[in-house]
């Protein structure tokens, strides 16, 4: 199973993983803010009303969801590019 590690530069592997950890951290921070912080401050956010939507309500019903979708695609595209950059991409069949 681990044969694909052979011939890979240890330093490069480390750099790849720490890049991944950095991206993951960014994703988790945004994820936390748009859900938990937005829930916590919903009463305050609700004072802003756009097109009939109190902003706190909007975040729970749509805003956070849209950001989740974008976040996942953003992470996927970034990581797929990083695979090539660090030479750990899977071989084409």
């Amino acid at each position: 199973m681990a044969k694909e590690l052979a011939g890979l530069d240890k330093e490069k592997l480390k750099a790849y993983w720490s890049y991944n950890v950095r991206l993951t951290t960014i994703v988790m921070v945004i994820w936390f803010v748009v859900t938990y912080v937005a829930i916590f401050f919903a009463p305050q956010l609700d004072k802003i009303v756009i097109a009939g939507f109190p902003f706190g309500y909007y975040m729970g019903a749509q805003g956070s969801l849209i950001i989740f979708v974008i976040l996942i695609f953003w992470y996927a595209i970034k990581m797929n590019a990083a695979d090539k950059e660090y030479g750990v991409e899977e071989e084409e069949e």
Partner: protein
Amino acid sequence: MAMKGGFLDNLGKIYGIYTVGFIVFVILLGLGEAFFGMTPKSIGYVYMAVTIGLYAMIGILSRTAKVSEYYVAGRSVPAFFNGMATGSDWMSAASFIGMAGTIFTLGYDGLAYIMGWTGGYVLLAVFLGPYLRKFGQYTIPDFLGARYGGNAARSIGIIAAITASFTYLIAQVTGVGIIMSRFLNLDFSVGVFVGLGGILVCSMLGGMKAVTWTQVAQYIILIVAYLIPPTVMSFKTTGNPISEIAYGQALQKIDAREKAINADAKEIEVMGLWKQKAADLDADIKGLPGSLDAKKADLNAKIAAAATPADKEKLEKALKGLPADAEDAKTKWTAAKGAAAGKSKPMKPYLEPFARLDAKNMLALTFCLMVGTAGLPHILMRYYTVPSVKDARMSVGWSLFFIFLLYFTAPAVAAFGRSEVLSNIVGLPIAQLPAWMANWGKVGLVSFTDINADGILQWYELTIAPDAIVLAMPEIAGLPYVISGLVAAGGLAAALSTADGLLLTISNALSHDLYYKMIDQHASITKRLAISRTLLVVTALISAWVATYKITIIVELVAWAFSIAAASFFPALVMGIWDKRANKAGALAGMYVGFLSCVIYMVGSRFYGLDIWGIKTISSGLFGIPLGFIVNFAVSRMTAPPSQEMQDFVESVRIPKGASAGVQE
């Protein structure tokens, strides 16, 4: 296998034609209703026969005798289509029928479900999905077994996978039975078995391959069915067909109407009457058993003195309606008292945060639902079916996108439904109530009591079950019955597709993990598949048999399944990938402690008054999840580190390179 290559190359075209064909079919049925007098019953039968027939046909076309196709669809499902399949795998009868109703009832606080059941995919995308694909075996217990060396971890994995999936499966099968019995007037048990027949033809012959392509077909039906009614409703009431944008207006209307209703003299009168009623019931409960005897004696005396036979009959009916004994009376009257008390207080604003759940519980519930989502084995195993790690990453995005389409519409459905009821139904003379109220009243989803006897419906006289919102929306929007039938077919697709995935998870855990990996490692492919197919049928029959008992605690059981998955699976899986130092002892201890603390809080808070920080039973995972992580971490650090070989294995799971090489028959 020219056909297979041809099929995979032309997926877009095939499902495009399928979608157009389905829409044409719905239009034809609509014409049949409008011009040829098709009855609702015959429309219902045509829908069920055609859709279940379609699913069975896909199953037959996808039959297979290859292990990799049976367990992981040959790892050939493109990211986009795996996203659709995951969408219908994930969205159950509860999402389709119940979600909008929950928001209708809970207002802002109901959004915990919307955020929780979508935000979990972010966790899945960054912590698990791509790595599980790289690992590239067949089941989730496979990963636990490989990473934590041996059968102990695998066994816990099997037990957790089966408990979580089986409770969830019962709920789906019950959903199938309810839809079938409501729309076709079939007996509940007959409905269950007819629906299950469709699932079995599909999954038994083709395993994951058949389930995948059926789920894509089911997604298309369920999303079309879900989106049509709110679009029409939105266009009719606001002039904007995009309900997700337009329902801001409905929210403002709701807010204004709620204030007006709470200030209305008649509504206040009704609330007062309920308060009186609750007090009367309270006195009756305290006066048991004497109060029940007194009521009986009173009615008997009245029957003896009745002037006309009609009066007598009415009184005799009332006597029969009384509880049988003091025990029965206590249960019934306490429930009635609760309902009366609920209607005696002015409603809290729909838009107000934390009016029904406090902030703490809302945060806890959202968190538990998210982690539970990322820990459910029937969802996780879908990411084994894509060709590469790259595809796995993109596929999580597509999954959430397809789920998002329904979930961001659900609050719009809830808002339009509530706005309609508050503005156009409340205040109507009872004789002029629209037909949909009577239709859904017949099956007990809508009811009212004219407690102040003024012949007009007040808000506080009306009870609407959450499920009624989605089911009645086509009629509320003034759409023909063909759309109501479509919604039922959509609900059925949602229940069947989830049931399919769950059934496969359970039978795979038993046939692959328990039998092949732990009992007979030399079993031939033919034997393995035969065992798997047999177990599938047996599991389906057991679940149908359990479902016919219609256990009332089912909704709670499903919430518990989430917490169990969250507290036992999620920490062990994440630590297995993200912490090289995590070892067998740590994982086993973590899973035990996570699972037990979760179960203890569930049972304790539900039945024995256990209460920590006021956290409700439904969020029991709140304690088990962090404990699962902490114990895993601490015990791993206190015991010997995993072998170099194991650390290399973790290292290899973290990089995509070699993903396609890891697959063998």
